[in-house]
Each structure stands twice: as C-alpha cells, then as structure tokens.
C-alpha cells in the first residue's frame, strides 16, 4: 500500500507492531531477568575477580583467581570427570527416554498406567531420600554388588573404586528419564499420522519409517532435550554430594559440587565464582556448537 506522506503511527498500528507485541509478551522474562538475574550474575562476575570470604568485604585481586584455576589440579580433574559423566550419562538418558516413549505409544488400555510406572523414578529422583536409597542399593553390602560378587568378581566395590564410582551416579541420572520421555511422547503425538500412513502405502518398513519420519519430525524436541540434559548434567550436585561426597579420591567431584565446597565449606566465594564463570564459558561454547550444527539436522515444520 502506497502512502503519499509519512503519517505518524496510529495507536492501533503501534499496538499491533511486531516490536510491541514481542516485548509485551516477553515482559515477564525481561522483568525477571533484569531484576533477579542480571544483578546476581553481575555480582558473581565481580566476586570472581575478588578475594571474597563472605565474612569480610570483597577485595579486588584482578585475574588471580583465574590464574590459580589454571594450575589447580583438583579443578582440572573435576572438569574431566564432569565431562565423562555427561558424555556417558546424557546419551544414555536420551536413548532410554526415546525408546520408552516409543514403546509406550502402542495403543493399549494400560498405556496410561505404564507411562505412570516409568515416570515414577523421575517424580522423586531428585530427592534426598532416593539418593540415600541409591547409596544403600549400590553399597558394598547391597543387592547389586552381591549380585556382581555372585558372578565371580569378589572384592568388587562401586564406591571404593575410582574407576567405577561414577557408574551408580550415571545410572541414577539416567533412571530419571521421565521428563525427557514425557516430552518425547508429546512430540511423538504431534507427528501427523498421515505421514506414517503415506509411507506405509509406499511400502516402507518400521525401521525406515523411524529414520525418515520419526527422527526428523522429532528433531526440534531432540535438540531441546539434548541441550537441557547437557546443562542439567553439568549441574549435577545433590546425588554426588549425598552418595559419594565427591570421592573416592575426587573421582566423582563434579564441578557443581566442587564450586559448592570451595564457596561454602572453604569460604572461598570469589574463587568459586571464578570457577562458575569458566564453567559457563565452556558450556556456552558446547551449547553454541550444538546450536550452530543443529540447523543442518533439525527440521521445523515450516
């Protein structure tokens, strides 16, 4: 539509302008971000350049915390074991979640009941009580080790073994795949049935249908679950604290636990903040890479 002269925007046009709509709808997040998040984030960044012991006022020491970080063996080890934990745990969890979600799409009257059963672990997984249960179950005198010993590996011990101590923790995390499963299930539901019907008519088998329809249609969900589980994997704290206390020999001293210990047990809040920011940069890099490559394998229904 051609306009003879530039008229000032009417109120109506203003209200309906994309920018207004956008900012209006995004307002809750903006308020929360600017008020409750950016100040603490900024403060933690400031602390990371200070020697801050909570009991006293922070004093600026520049890059000292970061320099110490590079030479800190404990921190390096912590990063390594966290990466190991995430690299094994996250794919395991996602595969479980997808398989079970698909397993439970078969229309039966018990479907709701089954879903509920598989979902129970997630409902209480994060709690202190379950961490204690896990500790007992995988303990050296618990049922699982007894089983393993029965198969011939006498003297085996999960929590005494630096190499194997991570496994119960990985399993505990993967066990709580419920929310990922639910999200996959919702996503599966959204895939139009016509696609499947059409390909069946074309004679495609179950496996081909999975790879050429299910996976691509689910790709935005896969991307979401991948990023979210990566992030939450890196933040693992409660289980490590309660079940292994970071041991043995720091084999399960995950980065969130390390930060908590430095900050709250050793009162090195400034140093803990520095570690957090390094962790943020690493995770931002990993997330960024995944996002960049996602455009090649994510398919949006547009």
């Amino acid at each position, binding site marked *: 539509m051609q306009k003879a002269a530039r008229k000032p925007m009417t109120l109506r046009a203003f209200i309906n302008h*994309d920018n207004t*709509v*956008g*900012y209006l*709808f*995004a307002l*809750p*997040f903006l308020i*929360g*971000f600017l008020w*409750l*998040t950016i*100040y*603490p*984030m900024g403060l*933690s960044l400031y*602390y990371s350049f200070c020697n801050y012991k*909570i009991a006293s006022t922070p004093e600026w020491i520049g890059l000292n915390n970061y320099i110490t970080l590079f030479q800190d063996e404990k921190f390096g080890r912590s990063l390594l074991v966290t990466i190991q934990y995430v690299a094994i745990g996250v794919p395991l969890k996602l595969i479980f979640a997808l398989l079970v979600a698909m397993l*439970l799409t*078969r229309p*039966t009257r018990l479907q709701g009941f*089954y*879903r*509920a059963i598989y979902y*129970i672990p997630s*409902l*209480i997984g994060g709690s*202190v009580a*379950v961490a*204690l*249960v896990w500790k*007992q179950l995988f303990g050296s005198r618990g*049922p699982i080790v007894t089983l393993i010993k029965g198969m011939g590996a006498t003297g085996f011990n999960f929590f005494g073994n630096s190499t194997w101590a991570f496994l119960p923790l990985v399993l505990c995390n993967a066990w709580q795949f419920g*929310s990922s499963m*639910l*999200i996959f299930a*919702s*996503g599966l*539901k*959204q895939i139009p049935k*016509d696609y499947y019907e059409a390909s069946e008519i074309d004679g495609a088998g179950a496996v081909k249908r999975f790879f050429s329809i299910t996976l691509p249609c689910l790709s*935005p969900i896969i991307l*979401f679950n991948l*990023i979210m589980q990566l992030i939450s994997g890196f*933040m693992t*704290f409660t289980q490590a604290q309660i079940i292994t206390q970071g041991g043995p020999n720091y084999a399960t001293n995950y*980065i969130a636990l390390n*930060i908590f210990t430095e*900050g709250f047990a050793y009162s090195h*809040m400034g140093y803990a903040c520095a570690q*957090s*920011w390094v*962790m*943020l940069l690493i*995770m*931002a890099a990993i*997330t960024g890479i995944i996002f960049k490559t996602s455009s090649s394998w994510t398919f*949006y*229904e*547009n």
Partner: protein
Amino acid sequence: MRRRRITMTVLYHLFVVAFGLLMIYPVLWMIMSSFKMKSEILGNNVPFFPTTWVFENYPNGWKGAGVYTFATYFKNSFIVAGLGTLGTVISSAMVSYALARVPFRGRKFWFTCMIMTMLLPGQVLMIPQYIIWNRMGLVSTFIPPILPKFLGWPFFIYMMMQFIRGLPKELDEAAMIDGCSKYSIFSRIVLPLLGPSIITTIVISFYWIWDDYMGPLLYLNKPELYTVSLGIKNFADVQGTNFGPMFAMSTLSLIPVFLLFLFFNRYLMEGVTAGSVKG
C-alpha cells in the same frame, strides 16, 4: 496371523511390565524400608521385605519436629508448587510465543540471554539473590520461591518454543489474512494447539518445585513455612539419620505428585489438541 498378533501383544506386555518393575525397584525398596527397623535398612544383604513391620514409622514421621506436623508441610508444598506451576504456565506460554513467533527487534539477543541464565550454577547466585530478597524484607514469606516462576522459567520457555516452531506458519498466515492481530493468533490458534505442551509443563514443573529444597531452605526458613522436601531433609543428620520415618514421609510425598501425573496423563493420551494440525 492372529496368533502372531496375540503372541506379540503378550510379549509386549510382559516386557514392559518386567522392565517397568526393574525401573521402580528402588522406589519399591524405599517403600519397603519405610516399614523396617534401622538395622534392617543398613545391614548386610538385607531382605526385601521387613521381618518386623514397623508401622509406627508413619505416625512418628508425620509428627515432624516440634509444633508443626507434616500436615503443615504438605499444605505449604501445595501452595508453593501449585502457585508456582500456574506462574510457570502463564509466563512460559507468553514468552515462548514472543520468542518463537513474533519477529521483534532484539529477539535473538534475548534468546541468547535466556540460555545464558541457565548456564550458571545456582550455588553462586544464591547469596546475591538472597541479599536482594532480604533487602525487600521478603525472606520468610512465600514470595521468593513463587514470584520468579511468574517471570519466566527458561526451561519451559524453550520447551514451548520448540513446540510452537513445530506448528505450521500457514495457520498464522491464514489467520492474518482473516484480519486477526498477533494477539488473537496467540489466544485463538497457538494457545489451543499448545495443549500437550502445557500439560507437560504442568506435570514437570509441579514436581520439580515440589522436590526442590534449596529455595525453601533459604526463604521458607520458619518451621511454619517448611515444605515437605525440607521436612524430609531434616531427618538426616551427622548424629544419626532417622531412616524409617524419613522413607515413610518420602513415600507419602510421592503420592500427590503421582496422582497429579495420572490425572493429566489421561488428557495427554486423549489428545487435548483441540483440532489436530492437519486435515
């Protein structure tokens, strides 16, 4: 052919049930332990079923410590989780619509900011946030654990964004041709189609808030405000953990969340997608 189908069905059910039992074994273990004596929980190679059933663990645990029982704790948990979930749904729907469907200036920037907020471990944000709330005199009220949920929870915002992106743009375009504003596109088209996503949000956010103990620890620090998660954590201490009552209360704590899930699961199954996408 028919026999094959029956065999497949039977096998399917057997497999699902067997694997399912394996999945919930730890939970069953916890429930059984809630009836055991302490020595039966901690000992060597303990039997699955209690030899003596200690039913007192339940009333003992329920009494909590001091004046307030778990009745108060449950009430508080419902308040925090209920209102928190409401806030999450409202804010997530709104913000995700903006970020996914409204091409406004700075959209990519704010999206990046949102992702960044998730990358910093909560441990370092705890103290500064506490100072903010304390300055406003809002510690020891329900506001700090609940209000932030009305201001957007990045996990759910992002989740709904992915769902919205899966909806075809043609619907929007058709509506705009019909003269709908961006606002009514939201209320008439996107929101109804977000059904499964909203239900998923309700279920997940509810139990995440229900299980959270860091928030209540810092801000609901008066015994009359404690939530169930705090009450349970109080059973554990260096000088002796009261396992029986702790597991008993954990078992009870599982029930509301499980019921909520069962209730909404029905809707998920029946597809509250008001009008399907294609055809």
